[in-house]
């Protein structure tokens, strides 16, 4: 069945997802580890506990952060 898509930006890169996709699905799609990641949508931090229910909308600006080495 044909599924409608939403276009979002993740760290300035355009990405197309199935409509109703949530943040967990986005991270899986990006092959990004769930651990050590943090997400902000339109400059608002989305808590990990909300990832499974947070549906991404057309034109959402997603920022994806990850833990890296540092002093």
């Amino acid at each position, binding site marked *: 069945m044909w599924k409608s898509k939403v276009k979002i930006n*993740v*760290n*300035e*890169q355009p990405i197309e997802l199935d409509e109703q996709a949530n943040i967990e699905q986005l991270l899986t799609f*990006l092959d*990004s*580890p769930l*651990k*050590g*990641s*943090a*997400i*902000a949508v339109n400059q608002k*931090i*989305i*808590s*990990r506990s909300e990832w499974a229910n947070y549906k991404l909308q057309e034109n959402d600006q997603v*920022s*994806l*952060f*990850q*833990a*890296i*080495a*540092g*002093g």
Partner: protein
Amino acid sequence: MDNKIINKMNNDQLIIAGKAFSSRLFTGTGKFNDQATMVAALQASNSELVTMALKRIDMQSKEDDILAPLIKNGMNLLPNTSGARNAKEAVFAAQLAREALQTNWVKLEIHPDPKYLLPDPIETLKAAETLANLGFVVLPYVHADPVLCKHLESAGCAAVMPLGAPIGSNKGIKTAEFLEIIIEQANVPVIVDAGLGAPSHAALAMEMGADAVLVNTAMAVAGDPVAMSRAFAKAVEAGREAYLAGLGGQSQVAVASSPLTAFLEAG
């Protein structure tokens, strides 16, 4: 060795925000050539608290998963706010780090000037107040400024992290006189951070009465990072033991260690 000192060393725990540490050597994860060396060095250091950073990732290149080996080795993570140029950015970074690493501990660092990476005291104090109110365990990286350290303590910081010298400079303790005042006045642990380039620098900080030191560059860029980390661990222990033992006072003139008089009179 005096049994009292052995007892003191055996029961010598550092407590920060209710968490006990046996090792007084904190470490960073930056600048190691590869992940295997980093993990081996951190293990050799016996460190129980390691810093890391957070980055807005580049979608074109994959980052290494640095987290898994650290968690596997039972290390506590201390995310920093490196990259933040003001209080607002630092608070945002701390909140992101809390989500990413599921810890409310944060090494607050705000250093807008890339040449010397010196911490901005005004923005740091502002961010510390906000973060402490939000329930963070705040460990601020600051200049060795005794007045600022007292303000940060009043703001609710769990420790203070005054610098010895600029980050990564390996110059050692250039702020000794002021660190001594900070240590004398502090009611929270004092962790000497930044600039410690050799085990002797770390030992000196501990002899002065610092509660802990944080070392990264000196280990990561050493010829043999694993051996250097082990050397730092020994130095921190030696310095701590010397502090607990009580250093002898200094004197401008010689004070004879051998009883010369009796020998001269015998002739």
